[in-house]
């Protein structure tokens, strides 16, 4: 798969190349191949921004990366990417509308303390960190298609830089909806790094998987299966 506009045929004008790529990305998001794109790129955020900003921000992100590439080569500051999908026995519209009401997300996302919607695009997120610490950030919706997709990125001053999208796609054969989350975040450096690294769990894949399973339980069964608070001979 071609990933960079520069590799396109030199006979095309730069404008038409950019327009073509923009269209392609837009359709890719709709069609779902976005995931592969995002994971093959150095930065999912870059791709998402490209869709929102017509490729320019993406280009910017690519070009400022001499230092970043060096860090990546050394294994420093590597963004963590997670991709998880679950099939839920409900129509896409129902799942989308629950998710889009961000203030409800803490009902199944255990690491979240609260989400406050600021306006149609922006929201404020507070997550629990170890040792009673909190991590906060503002997030912005950068791409949205009703009943299909929500893509977001944290704004510049976030404690933990993150971006991603959730996609709702009807499953074949009346099996409900495939809900896919692709997420990327940069573990912050410095002294709080190890504490913050735990924010998304020891294994981010598992944590996102758990959250998707809880979402599925809530949507299908109306409640989240639990054994917390039951008796045992350990009490």
């Amino acid at each position, binding site marked *: 798969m071609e990933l960079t506009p520069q590799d396109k045929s030199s006979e095309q004008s730069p404008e038409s190349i950019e327009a073509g790529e923009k269209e392609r990305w837009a359709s890719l998001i709709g069609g779902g191949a976005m995931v592969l794109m995002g994971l093959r790129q150095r930065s999912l955020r870059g791709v998402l921004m490209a869709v929102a900003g017509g490729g320019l921000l993406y280009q910017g992100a690519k070009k400022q990366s001499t230092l970043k590439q060096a860090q990546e080569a050394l294994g420093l500051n590597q963004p963590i990417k997670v991709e998880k999908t679950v099939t839920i026995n409900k129509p896409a519209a129902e799942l989308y509308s629950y998710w889009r009401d961000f203030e409800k997300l803490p009902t199944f996302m255990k690491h979240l303390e609260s989400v406050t919607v600021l306006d149609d695009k922006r929201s404020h997120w507070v997550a629990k960190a170890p040792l009673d610490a909190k991590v906060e950030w503002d997030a912005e919706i950068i791409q949205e298609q009703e009943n299909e997709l929500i893509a977001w990125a944290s704004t510049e001053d976030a404690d933990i830089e993150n971006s991603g999208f959730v996609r709702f796609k009807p499953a074949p054969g009346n*099996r*409900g909806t495939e809900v896919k989350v692709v997420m990327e975040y940069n573990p912050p450096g410095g002294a709080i790094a190890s504490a913050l690294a735990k924010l998304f769990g020891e294994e981010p894949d*598992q944590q996102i998987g758990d959250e998707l399973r809880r979402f599925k339980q809530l949507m*299908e*069964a109306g409640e989240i*299966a639990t054994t917390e*608070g039951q*008796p045992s*001979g350990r009490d």
Partner: protein
Amino acid sequence: MKAVCWQSANNVRVDNVPDPKILNPRDAIVKITSTAICGSDLHIYGGYIPTVQKGDIIGHEFMGEVVEVGKGVNNLQVGDRVVVPSTIGCGRCYYCERDMWSLCDNSNPNGWMEEKLFGNITSAIYGYSHLLGGYAGAQAEYIRVPFADVGVLKVPKELPDEKLLFISDAIPTGYMGAELCDIQPGDTVAVWGCGAVGQFAMISAYMMGAERVIAIDRFPERLEMARKYAKAETINYEEVDPGDALKEMTGGRGPDCCIDAVGLEAHGVGVEDFYDQTKQKLKLETDRPHVLRQMMVACRKGGTLSIMGVYGGFVDKMPLGAAFNKGLTFRMGQMHGQKYMRLLLQLVLDGKLDPSFIVTHQLPLDEAPHAYKIFQQKQDNCVKVVLKP
């Protein structure tokens, strides 16, 4: 309340623990009137099922009386007499909607563990390890029943517990074992294991049109029960090789269907037994597949193997060449109790099935440690113990 708490391999204790509480809207609390020790509880007791923790309340075959319901349960009332299936199903996922309740997507809160080991999540089972949900079990005075608005079977008050209790687990397991065989009129069905599940599989096989049922075990009292109540011909595998015997009894063809009602703690004879016992002790294989091996070789060409005995992990030295070249069909799984319970209750009400013959011991809950010991070691002709809280 009092509850049977697992301590370590071959060690259970009756402890005082807090009473269960409603934790979710679809929960109910049931006061247990009878609870049995299932053959598969012996896998837990013996320490063969991973992720069982010290202090876990075990047991999954039970019935009782509803004493409290959550606000999401509209079809049960305090005072209802109920039998509860051992596998927990939400009733709303793709699998439950298609009557495959033991494959429920939503009842296991520890699904990630199963996903890692099995590649997918299956239903939780009461008191059957944290891998399978970590729910507190039924060998106790009270139990919390999740998703109580679906699957739970209301039963009439006049029948004794002994006629109803096994609708919770052993009868549907045996019944499903026979159903998976897709029995045709005239078929010969061989059943390995003459415990409760084996007995009910044999009875069910006849109901489904089997002409002959052959039972395989090593304990005379269990074989006698199979002859007397399940009308089976019997093979004691410690006296004769079951493969040779089955061949001779079926005109050289082999049985049309073979049901495994034994599972991962199967016993064999000679070198093969030594091999599996040793490998299991060294943790080089988790399960002892004697019965599976015998079934694969003994079954007739094009026949069906139905596996209801529990397997937990990995087995080796499997004669896959036999199974492949003979074109065998394998069917298996934890039972979908909710699918069968109404039908089975009707059979009991109509007098066509009286499961109470299986009970050899009835003991107070306090005597659970003794009950486990005699059941595991087959002392005192023990086939099935019912505990009374």
